[in-house]
C-alpha cells in the first residue's frame, strides 16, 4: 500500500442540517483526519426568512409578531429590544409606567431562565445523555405555563409593546410563579448529580473547547462564554436597562473557559435568575397602569433617527440598531445577535483540532441559535 498524503487521508463530512446533534437547522462541513477535525466551515441559510427586510415593510406595531420569531428558544429579548429602540426614537420611553418596567424586567428574566434550563439540558443531551434534558425541558415547561398565563401563548409571547406591556399580571401570578421556582430549585440538586457529577460529562467536558481569552475582544464575544473565563461582563450590570439597575445583581463568573465551565456558568445563572425573579416580585408595585396611552398604531409615525439598544440574552449581548426616517415604518434595522459571532466565527476557529464527537457538545455550549444567526 502506498503512503497516503495528508490531503488524501482527509475525509469530508457533512454534519447537518439533518442531524440530531446539531443545535438547529444548520450545517457544518468538516474535514477530518481520523476523528479529529482539521478544519470546518459552517453553512447557514436554512432558516433565513429576511426579518430585517420584512420589518421594513411593516408598521411599527406589526413588527412585534415578527421579531419574536428571530430566536425561537428566547423570543422575548427581541420584543423588548424592538420596543425599547422605537420608544427611544419616538420619545415614548418617558411615558412607560413604572409597573410596566417591572413587568418587563420580570418577563425578560423569566425568558432567560427558560432558555438557560433548555440549554443546560442540551449540554448533556449533545453527549447522548437523555435524563437531564428531559427533566430540564419539563422544568422549563413550568415557566412556559406561567408565560402562557401571563401572555396568552407558550412560545411566542408578543407581550411587550411600545409604552409598556399588553396585559397586567393575572391574579395570583406571583404565588404560582414562586411555586414553580421552588419546584425548579428542588430538582436542581438532582440535575447536578446527573450533569456535573457525571463521570461521562466531566470526562468529555473538562478541558474541551477552550476559548482563549484574547479572542473576547477580537471577535466580540459576550455572555456566558466570556463569564466562563472569569471576566465579569454582563449587559444587565454594565448598561442597566429597565429595572436591572435597582436589583441586587452581580455578574456570575467561573473559570476554565471549557465546555464544563460554560455548563456550570449556566447552572449559576439559573440560580441567579431565580433569585432575580424573586427580587423583582418583591419590589414590583401592585398598583398602577401597565401601559402608556398609545397613539393610533395604524398611523403612528416617529421622527427620523437612529439608535442602538442592547440587552443581555441568555446567549450573550443582543442588540438592535434601528434607523427611522420619519415614516410609519422602520427604515432599516440590524439585529446584532450573539449567535452569529459564537456560532459562525468562533465555532469555525474552534473547530480545527476538535474531536468530531465533541462538535455537538461544543455547539451547544456556545449556545448557537441558527434562526437568530440568519434572521
Amino acid at each position, binding site marked *: 500500500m502506498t503512503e497516503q498524503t495528508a490531503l488524501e487521508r482527509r475525509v469530508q463530512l457533512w454534519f447537518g442540517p439533518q442531524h440530531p446533534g446539531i443545535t438547529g437547522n444548520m450545517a457544518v462541513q468538516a474535514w477530518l483526519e481520523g476523528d479529529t477535525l482539521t478544519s470546518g466551515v459552517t453553512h447557514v441559510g436554512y432558516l433565513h426568512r429576511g426579518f430585517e427586510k420584512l420589518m421594513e415593510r411593516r408598521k411599527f406595531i406589526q413588527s412585534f409578531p415578527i421579531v419574536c420569531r428571530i430566536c425561537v428558544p428566547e423570543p422575548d429579548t427581541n420584543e423588548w429590544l424592538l420596543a425599547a429602540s422605537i420608544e427611544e426614537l419616538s420619545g415614548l420611553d418617558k411615558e412607560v409606567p413604572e409597573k410596566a418596567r417591572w413587568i418587563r424586567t420580570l418577563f425578560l428574566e423569566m425568558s432567560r431562565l427558560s432558555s438557560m434550563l433548555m440549554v443546560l439540558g442540551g449540554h448533556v443531551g449533545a453527549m447522548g445523555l437523555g435524563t437531564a434534558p428531559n427533566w430540564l425541558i419539563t422544568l422549563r415547561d413550568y415557566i412556559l405555563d406561567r408565560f402562557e398565563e401571563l401572555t396568552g401563548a407558550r412560545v411566542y409571547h408578543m407581550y411587550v409593546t411600545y409604552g409598556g406591556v399588553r*396585559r397586567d399580571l393575572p391574579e395570583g401570578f406571583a404565588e404560582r410563579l414562586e411555586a414553580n421556582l421552588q419546584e425548579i430549585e428542588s430538582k436542581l440538586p438532582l440535575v447536578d448529580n446527573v450533569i456535573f457529577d457525571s463521570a461521562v460529562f466531566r470526562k468529555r467536558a473538562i478541558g474541551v473547547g477552550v476559548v482563549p481569552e484574547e479572542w473576547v475582544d477580537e471577535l466580540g464575544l459576550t455572555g456566558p462564554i466570556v463569564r466562563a473565563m472569569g471576566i465579569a461582563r454582563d449587559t444587565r450590570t454594565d448598561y442597566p436597562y429597565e429595572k436591572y439597575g435597582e436589583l441586587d445583581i452581580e455578574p456570575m463568573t467561573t473559570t476554565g473557559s471549557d465546555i464544563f465551565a460554560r455548563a456550570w456558568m449556566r447552572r449559576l445563572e439559573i440560580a441567579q435568575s431565580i433569585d432575580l425573579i424573586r427580587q423583582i416580585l418583591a419590589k414590583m408595585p401592585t398598583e398602577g397602569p401597565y*401601559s402608556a396611552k398609545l397613539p393610533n398604531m*395604524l*398611523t403612528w409615525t416617529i421622527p427620523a433617527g437612529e439608535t442602538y439598544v442592547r440587552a443581555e440574552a441568555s446567549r450573550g449581548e443582543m442588540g438592535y440598531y434601528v434607523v427611522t426616517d420619519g415614516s410609519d415604518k422602520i427604515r432599516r434595522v440590524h439585529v446584532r445577535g450573539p449567535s452569529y459571532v459564537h456560532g459562525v466565527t468562533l465555532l469555525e476557529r474552534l473547530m480545527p483540532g476538535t474531536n468530531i464527537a465533541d462538535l455537538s457538545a461544543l455547539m451547544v455550549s456556545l449556545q448557537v441559535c441558527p434562526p437568530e444567526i440568519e434572521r
Partner: protein
Amino acid sequence: MSLKYTIAPFSAWLQAVSKPFTVPVTGGPRPGAPRYRGWHINDVEKCIGCGTCSAICQNEAIDMVPVDDPVVGDSGLRPKIDYGRCCWCALCVDVCPSGSLGMSNEYVWADTDADVFRYIPGVDEKPWDDSELGWRREEGFELVDHDRVPMGMLDPDERTQTWAEVVIGYTEEQARVEASRCVDCGLCVAACPAHMHIPDYIGAIRDGDDARAVQIIYDNNAMPEMCGKVCTRRCESVCSIGVQGDPLAIRWLKRYATERFDNLAEVLQPQVERVGEGRTVAVIGGGPSGLTVAYYLAIRGFEVTVHEALPQVGGATFFGIPRYRFPMSSLEKQVDLLKSAGVKFVLNHRVDGDELTRMLAENDAVFMGVGLMKPMALRAPGEDLPGVIPALDMLREQNLGHEVDVGEKVVVVGGGNVAIDASRISRRLGAEVTIAYRRRVVDMPADDEEIEDAEAEGVEIVTQAIPLRVEATEDGKLDFVWGPAEMVQEEEGKRPRPKLIEGVENHLVVDRVIVAIGQGPDLDWLPTEISEKICNKWGYIEVDETGMTAVEGLYAGGDLVNDTADAISAIADGLRAVNGIVDKTRAQHV
C-alpha cells in the same frame, strides 16, 4: 476520576418513585390559560365590519367578506380568518374598535386538507363559539387613540357677550394629531349623504398636505367650510373609533383644512370635462343644494344663474344659522369661489310661477332648492298673540342685521337645532331663556354639542313640557301655560311619545314665546299644472334617482326633497342633480 462521579448519576433512579408529572390524555387536551390566544370568536351583532382588524394584520390573514347587507354604521362585512396566515398575535383583538373580536382558549385543529383552515368567526359555527375564556379586548390597552383632541372654545360667560365664533378651530399641530387617529375604515363615507372621501382627506391632513385635503373635500362638497362648522355629522356618529372612544372630529378637521386657504380658487384647479359649454341652467334658491349645483355645473362649463329671494345667497345657512356658528366671512369666501367659477347671482328676486314656466322653456335645466320656509304653527290657544313669534322669522331678522327685541325673558318651544339657535341668540340679546320641549333631552333632534353649549351659556331646558296655551297678562307679558308629559313607549325600538298628564298646569311668564317646532314646505307659488305632477301629499317634492322631478328638465333637491333636512343632505341632493344633468347632457352629445 473519583468513584463519586460514577455513582452520582444513578441518583436519577430516585425519580422512579416520585410523583409522575405526565399530563394525562383522558378528558381531552388541557384547557388553555384564561387569556390564551386560541381560535377567534366574534360577536357579529357588535361587529360593525370596519375592517380595522384586517388593516392591522401584518400577515393579511383577515379578509373582510360580505355576510349581510350594509346599513349605515355597519359595512355588512365580517372578518374571515385564514389560519394558514394567522400567527395568533391578537393585535386584531386589541385593536378592534367595536370590541367584538376575541379569542377562545381552544387550540386544537388538525386536518388533512390545507384549505379548511379558514372561517368567519361568529358566522360559521365552531365548537369554541361560546368559549368563556381566552384573549379579549381589555379596557385600558388600546392600539388606537380613543381621545379626541379637545377643541378650543370661548368661555361660556364670554360667549353671551359677543357674536364672535364660539369654536376657535384646530391649530396645525392639533389637526395633525387628530387626523392621525383615523383608522381608514370608511364607514363614514357610507354614512355621509354626500359620500365625501373622508378618510382620504383626513389622511392628507395627517400627512401635512392641506391643499390636497381641500381638493379632495371639493370633490363632492362645494360648501365644506359651512359643513366644517355646522354639519350634522352623520359621519361622526358611525365612526368606528367612536364605538368605544370619542369619534374622530371629522367636522373640525374639514373646518381646519378649508380655513387654511383664503383664496380657494388658487388651490382648487378642478380637472373635469367641460361638457356643459353653451348650455344654461337656472337655479332657484341659493341654499346649499342650489349652490352645489351651481358650482359643479359651472366648473363643467354650464352657464349658471342663481335666483335668490334674500339679499344674500346661502339659504338656511345664511338666514338660519347664527353668526357665532357660521360667520359671514366664511360664507362670502364660498360665494367668491362660485363667482370665480362663473356663477351669476340674481339677488332679492323671488321667482313666481310664470317665471318658472319661462325658465323651463329657456334653460337646459332648472334646479329648484327652495327649502322649507313655512314654520309649523303651534296650534295652541293664544298663538296669535303678539309676542308669539316663529323662530325662523326671528333668525332671519337677526341675520339680516335687523333689530330683534326679545325682551327679558323668553321661552323657546321645540328641541331642534332651530330652537337651540333661537335660544342662544336670545341669550346674546340679553334675555333669560327657557326651552320647553315635549320629550326628553335624549330625544332632542338638536346636536348634543349644541345642547351642551346652550346649557353652558345659561339656557334652561324644561323637558316633557307640553304647551297648552298662551295668555296675555295684565302687565303686557305672556303667560305660557304648559302641562307635564309622561313618555309612552308604544312600539319597541321607536322613540317614545309624550302623553299629557291631565290636570296639571304650570305657568311661565315671559316676554316672548318663540316657536321652533318645525317647518314645512311652502310651494303655493308653483303653477298647479307643475305642482300636480311633482308634489306628494305632505307637500314635498318627489324626484327620481337623477334628481329630476316628473317635469322634464326640472330638478329639485334640498330639504324640499329629502326627509332629513340638513345641509349635507341638501348638498348630496345637489350632487345627484349635477350628475343627472351632466349625464343627460353627455347623452345628448352622443
